[in-house]
């Protein structure tokens, strides 16, 4: 494997990290919560596609649509049941975090109870074949992944910067109290943020499971952790930042895996987080925000 194909592989997994990182980043931007349950949404999405394709036997596009809607509803449900009550009571931040981790473990174990802890093999639904680019070979799956991620991220950037909904999101993340006074329904805006983030996670789930075709109850936790690191690396709360962070992290990880070892690769990813926090806590594209008293 030469460097070029390693980098292409890195971009492949990196764009999946980026899609997941967007969900973390948007939620963190708007309610300052590390939504630990976001990783589990990926797992739910992967199982949803699996159930539709293998157990029900629908065509791919229906399976994707169902998984998308299911994940979006799941995200909204989690926000409604687990977070809103605490948010409105102005509970300490740590209570929200503990609820988030609780939801994450709950979903993991629920999936384990329903589908057993042994993995399900994901059907091969993506077109085969590859094209050559110099020394490197790019598979069709890599191209589809990159293209899907790019389209979704451009779409999200447009949504956040051009539409009324996006304006409301930015307003709530800037100052929720003031946004409320300006007539923005903050609860609805937050619910939509969760829905969009979870829908992106369901697409990430499809792309990830196509590359690594084993669906397990625990697949979301490491993927989620890495995606969160990508979000911090790029600058949490920023859409282009999540993209950049995802790509960089994916490339760093594949290079470490290819040239050192896969155990070290995990440690390196983690070391990147420590370095970012030490050197530039706001992330590469993040703004430094002054604390207001």
């Amino acid at each position, binding site marked *: 494997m030469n460097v070029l194909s390693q980098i292409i592989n890195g971009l492949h997994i990196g764009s999946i990290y980026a899609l997941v990182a967007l969900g973390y980043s948007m939620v963190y931007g708007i309610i300052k919560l590390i939504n630990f349950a976001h990783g589990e949404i990926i797992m739910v999405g992967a199982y949803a596609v699996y159930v539709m394709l293998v157990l029900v036997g629908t065509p791919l596009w229906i399976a994707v649509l169902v998984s998308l809607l299911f994940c979006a509803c799941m995200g909204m449900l989690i926000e409604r049941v687990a977070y809103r009550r605490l948010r409105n009571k102005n509970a*300490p931040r740590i209570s929200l975090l503990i609820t988030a*981790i609780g939801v994450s473990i709950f979903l993991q174990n629920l999936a384990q109870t329903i589908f057993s802890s042994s993995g399900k093999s994901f059907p091969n639904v993506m077109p085969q074949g590859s094209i050559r680019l110099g020394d490197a070979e790019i598979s069709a799956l890599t191209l589809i992944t990159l293209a899907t991620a790019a389209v979704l991220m451009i779409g999200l950037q447009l949504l956040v910067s051009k539409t009324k909904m996006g304006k409301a999101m930015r307003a709530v993340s800037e100052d929720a109290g003031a946004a409320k006074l300006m007539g923005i329904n903050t609860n609805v805006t937050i619910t939509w943020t969760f829905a969009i983030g979870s829908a992106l996670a369901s697409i990430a789930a499809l792309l990830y499971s196509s590359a690594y075709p084993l669906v397990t109850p625990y697949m979301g936790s490491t993927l989620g952790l890495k995606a*969160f690191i990508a979000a911090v690396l790029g600058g949490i709360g920023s859409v282009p930042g999540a993209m950049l962070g995802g790509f960089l992290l994916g490339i760093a990880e594949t290079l470490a895996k290819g040239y050192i070892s896969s*155990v070290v690769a995990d440690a390196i990813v983690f070391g990147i987080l420590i370095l970012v926090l030490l050197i530039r806590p706001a992330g590469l594209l993040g703004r430094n925000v002054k604390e207001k008293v």
Partner: protein
Amino acid sequence: MMKKKGKSYLINFALVAVLFVVLQVLISSGVINRYYNGILMLVGINVILAVSLNLATGFLGQLVLGHAGFMAVGAYTAALFTLNSSLPEGLALVVGMVLGGLVAAVFSAVIGIPALRLRGDYIAILTLGFGEIIRVLLNSLEFTGGAKGLNGIPAYTTFPSVFIVAALTVYIIYAFINSRHGRAVIAIREDEIAAESAGIHTTYYKMLAFILSAFFAGVAGALYANYIGVLAPAKFDFNYSVEILLMVVMGGMGSITGSIVAAVVLTFLPELLRGFSDYRMLIYSAILIAIMLFKPTGLLGQQEFSLAGLAKRGKRWFAKRKKGKEGA
């Protein structure tokens, strides 16, 4: 004031001593068999873990999701030490515990320095990552025995040693919380900005509490290693960290006595409910969510259960009744 405090300390000390003597007599007379003796030692270890996590999560207000990771570091350090040392039994255990605690403290400092300088919840994600990475490393490193782990670790841990260390841990953390340092830590939890403007060096105190918490997790790990005799990385998984967190949350974030009670209950409960072991984490996580939604500070909140407090309350109750009678 001073006198009252001294008296309450004395009562508590006497009670702990009586409890120890009673348990010890029951063990040596065989009323408590080997199986329950083992569980009692686990209870003691879990008490150390829960109370030390409460320092970081309850009193400092930082969510730590890798307490089992710090415990693993301490356990492996102590195991490697006792496997290779020729010191007499008791001394080897003490040195092993101190070493285990210190190594865990060093790891916590490496994680704490980048995360605790900043506001925000980075410590949660860093400790979560640490817990996972340490397991992967223990699985692949040669000197820790890989996935098979270490075995044949000398069984130095006895019931008295667990009991004494647990009591000492509780005392030290209690004394810390009620000292000037502890008040600083609690002030940071209540309002970091206000604490900083009152002249409290927030990073220093956050680090202090976090490192102290990890130190005791390492000590608990050392006791565990020399009790169980075999170590495998799989034991120190994320679920174990969550179990310890649940002890803290059930007992009340900021209540030491609450943590002790919860640690006792949550160690015995799984033994009694073996049939439910498949659903254990499902039930635990549901309880975790429910407690947070309906009582965000945990079941006992920040209240401590104490005999002196009970006596005071009783006196007040009597006084009220007397007054009521006189009035009528």
